[in-house]
């Protein structure tokens, strides 16, 4: 831990357990503390006049829960639904929100010193929704700031899918 950057990352407390999932070829990680449950894909009721990345609403044990499409949020191509497509229910800033992802991988321990601050790609690619880039399980994980993803922030997400 001689590297000062790594030390400061450690102090931000980013190290911990993460749920990893994939969108296409990219691996993402989200803090397990934000995850409430994982459910299989189900019929989603369309809601009019909402942003395109909001797929609609589902019935989660009697509660109406909105569902967003992370691919659409990051302006990636829409993928076909498969048996592996599922919904991660997270504790958002305004209640539970379902997040549709291609595939859930595993729960990983990512050490604080293995998480680097997000790189900058200039104006064409925003990394505002990343807390950092972690290395674990022999792969590179994009650590998501889920609050900002769900916060309705209108910052342009175009191109994030092409980061790696």
């Amino acid at each position: 831990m001689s590297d000062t950057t790594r030390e400061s990352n450690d102090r931000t407390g980013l190290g911990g357990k993460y749920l990893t999932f994939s969108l296409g070829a990219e691996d993402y990680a989200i803090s397990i503390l934000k995850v409430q449950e994982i459910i299989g894909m189900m019929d989603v009721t369309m809601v009019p006049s909402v942003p395109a990345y909001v797929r609609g609403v589902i019935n989660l044990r009697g509660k109406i829960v909105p569902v967003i499409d992370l691919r659409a949020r990051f302006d990636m191509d829409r993928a076909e639904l498969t048996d592996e497509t599922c919904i991660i229910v997270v504790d958002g800033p305004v209640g539970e929100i379902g997040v549709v992802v291609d595939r859930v991988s595993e729960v990983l321990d990512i050490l604080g010193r293995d998480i680097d601050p997000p790189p900058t790609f200039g104006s064409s690619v925003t990394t505002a929704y990343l807390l950092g880039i972690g290395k674990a399980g022999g792969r590179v994980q994009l650590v998501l700031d889920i609050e900002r993803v769900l916060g309705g922030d209108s910052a342009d997400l175009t191109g994030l899918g092409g980061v790696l």
Partner: protein
Amino acid sequence: MTKDASQDAISAVLDDVAATLACLDGDDAAAISDLANRLALLTGEIEAPAQREMVARAGKKLRKVADGTAKVPSESLAAARRLVAAATGCPALEGEVSGTVEAEVDDAGAWEPNPGSATEPESFDGAPNSSTSSEAPSVSTTGDTAVVETPADALDNDPELVHEFVSEAHEYLTAAERALLVLEATPDDRPAIDTVFRAFHTVKGVAAVLGFSQIAELAHRAESLLIPVREGKARFGTGYANLALRAVDMIRSLVERAGVMAQGVPLSIPGGYAPLMAALDAPVGPDEAPTPGARVDPNEHEPVEKAPAPADAPPGAASTAETWVRVRTDRLDQLMDIVGELVIAQAMLSSDGLLASEHGRELSRKVALAGKTVRELHDLSLALRMVPLRGTFQKMARVVRDTARRVGRHVEFTTDGEETEIDRKLVDALADPLVHMVRNAVDHGIEPADDRVASGKPAGGTVRMRAYHAGGNVMVELSDDGRGLDKDKLVARAIEKGLVEPGATLSEQEAFQLIFEPGFSTAKTVTDVSGRGVGMDVVRRAIESLSGRVDIASTPGRGTTFMVRIPLTLAITDGMLVRVGAERYIVPTANIRITLRPDASSLKTVSGRGELVVLRGEAIPMFRLGRVFGVPGAVDDPTQGLVVIVGEEHSCSALLVDDLLGKQQVVTKSLGGFIGRVPGVSGGAILGDGRVGLIVDPDALIALARQAA
């Protein structure tokens, strides 16, 4: 009043003046002048010379204050107050009283606080004045709110105990308020007086135990205020009622503050506290206060404190044998959600194909039995949300009283059906529009007494509120026996305001509904009560937002009746399930006039874009639900779909859908904060197959469609 007016009548006026004086603000010159006039008039009626002298002098002092010629207005006011108080005493005591008063008037202000600046009311007589004063904190008034040093024991109270105190106090105060209104009509009502005492007494006791000394002290003084009334030594006049009601309001607001007070934070005291405390001390007859301070001798309160019924009996406990349990509302909502889920699970179970098979017969019987129980459970859980309208009616009684006093009318308020139950969430939402309507009825509906007598009606007006269930709705009717609505005047006014084309012919109901138009007011003068041209349109909007409506019936010269119809609950919507593409929507049955399959001959277009359905000669604009909501795969040819006609007569619209799937009762749920309000959609519901269906708000939907067109 005539020369031979009875001593009783004189006493009644004096009591009234005494109490009004006590709550007066020193700056209110008009009110002081009014009192001075009343006293001057009264001197002509009084036979006893000492009493007449006192009243005359009090009148002169007040006149000076009103004219601004008094050297020290607060002292003159205080002197006048004591003179009137002395004059209200028994005429038999007049000699003695007169002497006492002379002595006191000479050093006016020495022992009585000024009403406006009484920051330390409990120490003015230099003697400990009650059992609670030892722990009474010092009050420092700065601006609207004063922060008070609360004794340490109030800061670490068990939150549960405080919570219990808040809800218990609320019940007692409500009972006291109701009793005070009863007393105003029938001053001799013993049970009502006892109820008021019990309320103040219990609040005082519990507040003292919990260390809320400001509340305890105020309740104590409110109790003391009414001792003369209870002992039959004073008549319960309007002034007493005002003061006691103010005390109820103040205690209520203090108790509310105590309830939300964070642990370790001192109780904040509203600005009106100190003046009220001073006012409560003032109107005491001389027979109870031969020497200053004696009236607050704890021993003197002994009989009063013992007299009320045991304080642990909740108000009204004697009259009903029902028992109650308090439940947190979030738990109730949770129960509703879970029962709703159970109903859906049951529906999925009973439609399972296995039940219809050869081996399923026995299972099917068992599932049906479970289904019956589930339905009963569902009905019961819905009933748990229902509360009677009683509280709302009581609030209205107070509004009638206060408004009638302010506009100088005599109005009697009667209620019927206050046990009618309604969804707890609707109760609060209904109160605001009703307050407005009640004020309007008193201010605009009921005529001044002279006009009433001239047209052969009793001088006092009547406002009547009645509630009952009708189908799935609750009806609340508000009637007055006032001047009624004049259709021609309303129309003339609307034309003048540009709301109606000149020469238009309106039905009676249409003319009456004009009063709900924004900017429409029939009152010629603007009062502080109503008549500013805002209000009735807000009333209609508020009631429509509860899926309700207001109708008006009126006969000129005989009165007006407003009929408010709102659903029993917003939680349940009777709806028609419709299909558009792969999506399903619920259209509330209340909005639907008719559904039909259009044939080609009834379909017209306007300039190639706007579509119309002609129904019985009436051209109705048609909107495609699929297009408004952007649903893929909806039918393109209207003759292959169905139209649902929604809206009021003469202003209805047609919604094109693919198919009708049947009627369904659904539990309305919010779509959550992330999605927020969606135009054209009032909420969501879980359908029989467990999927979510959106509930359409037809009016908003059509507004949206028109915008897009």
